[in-house]
């Protein structure tokens, strides 16, 4: 239960980070508050849009799905259900792989780092670690019988 609560809290923070970047991409608000980082360089690069949609939008959808999944899995009836752990681990794995690709682009193609993107990368990595540990622990507690 604790792991799902942690995932819900982290996904909520990640959701707002992605929402900020997405709204900025839509022209809402002024310049990104980025300190001395290269947020604008990253956000105005051609890799900031995927299939005609700002990359941050995929983050909004992904974090929202993780948030809803984690909250729904906290219902008493779902607490011991393994499929929710599988779903959270699966979703966070997709998010982690996508983030790894974006971080690679920042480091080796665009040569600029967006601090908000780094923040999101840390959040999805922690979510993935928590989700995978929760899944392994549940598997260890309830061994499945093979007939």
């Amino acid at each position: 239960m604790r792991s799902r609560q942690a995932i819900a809290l982290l996904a909520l923070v990640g959701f707002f980070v992605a929402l900020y970047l997405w709204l900025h991409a839509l022209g809402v608000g002024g310049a990104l508050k980025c300190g001395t980082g290269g947020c604008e360089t990253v956000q105005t690069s051609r890799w900031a849009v995927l299939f005609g949609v700002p990359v941050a939008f995929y983050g909004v959808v992904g974090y929202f799905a993780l948030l809803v999944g984690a909250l729904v899995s906290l219902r008493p009836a779902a607490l011991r259900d393994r499929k929710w752990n599988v779903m959270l681990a699966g979703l966070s794995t997709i998010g982690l792989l996508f983030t790894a690709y974006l971080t690679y682009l920042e480091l080796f193609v665009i040569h600029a780092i967006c601090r908000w993107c780094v923040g999101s990368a840390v959040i999805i990595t922690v979510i993935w670690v928590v989700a995978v540990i929760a899944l392994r622990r549940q598997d260890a507690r309830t061994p499945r019988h093979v007939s």
Partner: protein
Amino acid sequence: MNRFYVVIAVLAVVLGIALFVLLGRSGGAAAAAAGPPVTVEDDGFRGYTLAVGDPVVEITEYSDFECPFCANFAMVQMPTIKEQLINTGKVRWRYRDFPLPVHRYSRFAAHAAQCAGEQGRFWEMHDQLFSHHQWAQTGKDPSALFRDLAKTIGLDQARYDTCMTAGRYASRIEFSRQEGDKVGVNGTPTFYINGKVFTGSRATSDAFKAIADSIIAHTPPKPRPARN
């Protein structure tokens, strides 16, 4: 369990307020650099130039960093002009600001270039502003992008920031625009070749080369200094 839902609700509210504050803040474009100055003074500056030696032909370009035609000219024609006319000592190229009122950030961009010029990198910033011209299409506050560009060309960031915040060259830019008004500039880019307006249908490197070659051919060679 109930306590958890309270925590997540409070966190959602706090993050929502933070998002609202982040989006609500005005952009980073310093007003002093982005708008016209209160007073206009002639500081004697007449534009950054590119030249080798002492050419007999001078081309003055009145330009606007937010203008797409100016960006196209800078990216497509200017490299050939540099190679064929400027580097060969045939032409001196002079850049003058003519920010159009319809462009929201052209003064701000002109100011960024002037602040780069203060550190000896006007032309590097000129090239960056035109080669990353997507900022002019989005309509978003480009101040953070310009800071990135300043960093890319190796400017002292603190000096650049101070220059931009103070709007140090706002008067110089407006003076240039008023000068353009006086000589009859009514669009950008507009070119003057040895003081005469270029009236060709297309401002291409070939057109400028033909005119420059013609002027050079009809100009008597400068007398050499007498030897004692």
